[in-house]
C-alpha cells in the first residue's frame, strides 16, 4: 500500500517577520520600529519577556507531614498534591492536568480528550449554527420544488444542536432564533403549498 501523502502543515516556529514570514532571531525581537533583516521592510513591534510558569514539585521526603506523603503514581519521588477525579490516582503537580474540569492524570486526560469529553480542551468542533442557516436558505431556494419542508426540518435539527453549543459557550442566540423562525415559516408555507395543490387538483378532477 502506498504511503499517505505528507501533510503540508506549516509548523509554528516562533516570532517571524509579519511581512515576509522570515524567522526573527532574539536580536531582532525588540520594541519599537523593527526592520526585517530579510525583506528590509519596517514594522512596529512590542516585545515581551514572559516569565516561565513555575510548578512547585515537593519531594516525598520533604513533604511536611508526620508520616511523609503519598507518592505520585508516575513520579515516585514526588509528593502527590491531589488525585485524579476520574481514576483516583495520586498525582503530583507535574502530572496534574487541570483545564478547569478538575484534576486529571495524563492518561485520563488523553482518553477524555480523544473522546471529545473535555470541552475546554477541544480544539475542533462543528459549527451547527452555520449548518442550520445554510439548510434554512436552501429551503427558501427550493421551496417551489416542495423541498422547503425537508430542508426546514434539517435546519431545525441542526438548530437544536447549535442551541446547546451556543448555550454551553454563553454566546448570543439571536441569529439562531431568526433561523428557527424562518424554518418554521418554511414548514408552514410548504404545508400551505401542498394544501393548495391538493385543492386545485381535486377541483380539476371534479370538472
Amino acid at each position, binding site marked *: 500500500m502506498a504511503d499517505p501523502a505528507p501533510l503540508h502543515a506549516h509548523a*509554528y516556529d*516562533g*516570532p*517571524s517577520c*509579519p*511581512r515576509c514570514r522570515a524567522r*526573527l532571531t532574539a536580536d531582532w*525581537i525588540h520594541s519599537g520600529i*523593527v526592520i526585517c533583516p530579510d525583506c528590509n*521592510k*519596517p*514594522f*512596529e*513591534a*512590542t*516585545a*515581551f*519577556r*514572559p*516569565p516561565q*510558569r513555575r510548578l512547585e514539585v515537593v519531594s516525598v521526603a520533604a513533604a511536611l*507531614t*508526620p*508520616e511523609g506523603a503519598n507518592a505520585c503514581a508516575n513520579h515516585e519521588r514526588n509528593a502527590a498534591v491531589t488525585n485524579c477525579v476520574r481514576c483516583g490516582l495520586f498525582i503530583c503537580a507535574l502530572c496534574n492536568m487541570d483545564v478547569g474540569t478538575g484534576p486529571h492524570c495524563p492518561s485520563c486526560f488523553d482518553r477524555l480528550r480523544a473522546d471529545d469529553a473535555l*470541552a*475546554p480542551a*477541544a*480544539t*475542533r*468542533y*462543528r*459549527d*451547527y449554527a*452555520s*449548518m442550520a442557516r445554510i439548510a434554512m436558505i436552501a429551503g427558501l431556494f427550493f421551496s417551489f420544488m416542495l423541498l422547503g419542508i425537508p430542508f426546514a426540518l434539517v435546519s431545525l435539527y441542526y438548530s437544536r444542536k447549535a442551541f446547546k*453549543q451556543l448555550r*454551553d*459557550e*454563553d454566546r448570543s442566540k439571536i441569529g439562531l432564533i431568526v433561523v428557527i423562525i424562518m424554518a418554521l415559516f418554511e414548514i408552514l408555507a410548504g404545508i400551505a403549498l401542498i394544501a393548495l395543490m391538493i385543492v386545485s387538483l381535486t377541483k380539476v378532477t371534479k370538472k
Partner: protein
Amino acid sequence: MTPGKRKRLGRNVGTMTRETVFETVDAIETESREGYDVTRKRVLFEEILLVTIHRELGVLYVTLTAALTVTFAGVAFFSRSVEGVAIFFSILALTFFIACAVRVATRVDFVSVFGRRSKAVMRFSLRKRRAREVYGRICSRALEVQRAMIEPASALPPGETPPGPPESLQGQQHEDVPFTAG
C-alpha cells in the same frame, strides 16, 4: 470550547484563510473555518512574545481588481455599439476600479500576535483606528498578565494590611491536629 464571554477583535480573511479572532479572559482565541469545521487555537497572554502592527498593500488583491477593471473596461469599449451591454460592463469596471483605488489609498493594517506556541493575525482594511486600539489592548493585557505572574499573587498594594481572622476566633490558641492518613 471556551465557556464564558469573549470579545471579537477582528478577522483574517484572505485567499486561503478564514479566521475570526476573539479576546477571552486569558488568551487571544483564533477560530479558523474549513467548511463547517472550526479549529480553535489560543495564544495565551502569559506566553505572548511579540505583538506587531504594519500596513501592507496586498499585491494580489490590487493586481486582481486592476486586471478585472481593464478586462471589463475593454469589453465595454469594444461593445460600445450595443449601448446596454457597454453600460453594464462599464459599471462592472467602475466597481472594480473603486475597489482597487480604495485599497491603494488605504492599504490593510495587520496586527500579529506571536506566542510561544502559536500566533494570531488580524486584518483591518478600513478601520485604522480600530487596528491601533486592538494593538494597544493586546499589549496592555499581555503586560498586565505577565506582570501579575512575576509579582506574587498575595502581594497587597502599599499601605494595606492583610485581613485578620474573624472576631469569634480571635484569642483562641491554634491546636495541632495530628495527621491521619485517609
